């Protein structure tokens, strides 16, 4: 059974903190993605990566960075968390980026106070 695992289901952080969201996939996919999901806005692409140490900005990269040191792991970093980054964060991986199914993790509900 294929799996994308996000390290936390729920996180509460303070404004200004540096926050790390971790994602691991066991499917040997080269492509990994971070989306955020907000009511009425759907899923919006933050960053994606098509290879180790490679990254591409999505539609809303401001305030975020990413790290891909190993093929199976893709981290989303909030350099200085703000309340408008309170959201559901979804990690995904795929074999064919944009041309095939992306497999999603369970999501991390982040609250910034």
């Amino acid at each position, binding site marked *: 059974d294929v799996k994308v695992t996000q390290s936390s289901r729920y996180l509460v952080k303070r404004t200004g903190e540096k926050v790390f969201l971790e994602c691991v996939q066991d499917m040997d996919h080269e492509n990994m993605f971070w989306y955020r999901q907000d009511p009425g*806005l*759907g899923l919006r692409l933050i960053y994606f990566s098509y290879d180790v140490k490679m990254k*591409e900005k999505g539609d809303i990269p401001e305030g975020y960075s990413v790290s891909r040191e190993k093929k199976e792991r893709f981290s989303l970093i909030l350099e200085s968390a703000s309340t408008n980054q309170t959201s559901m964060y979804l990690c995904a991986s795929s074999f064919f*980026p*944009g*041309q095939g199914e992306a497999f999603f993790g369970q999501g991390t509900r982040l609250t910034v106070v």
Partner: protein
Amino acid sequence: GESVGLHLPTLSVQEGDNSIINCAYSNSASDYFIWYKQESGKGPQFIIDIRSNMDKRQGQRVTVLLNKTVKHLSLQIAATQPGDSAVYFCAEDNQAGTALIFGKGTTLSVSS
């Protein structure tokens, strides 16, 4: 710009009815389209996909229709069941073909 939208944020149906969820897309060059179902507390799960060289594709109780002329995508669910209650998202490939761009989602509620 690139955007994928859904016509209705919510849809309520009776058990046993057929459901139709609609989606409009703006990028006429998109080659790949996909529908996801997201149940409460879970990540989105794949339902069905279709490429731009097709008009229709059928799965188990689901059918996706693609009308490229009006840039419209629809998901039909036959004999809707309470377990079909979820948020449904359509998505298309971005212009570079490197990622999926999602619509805003339609919440389907099935009453028995």
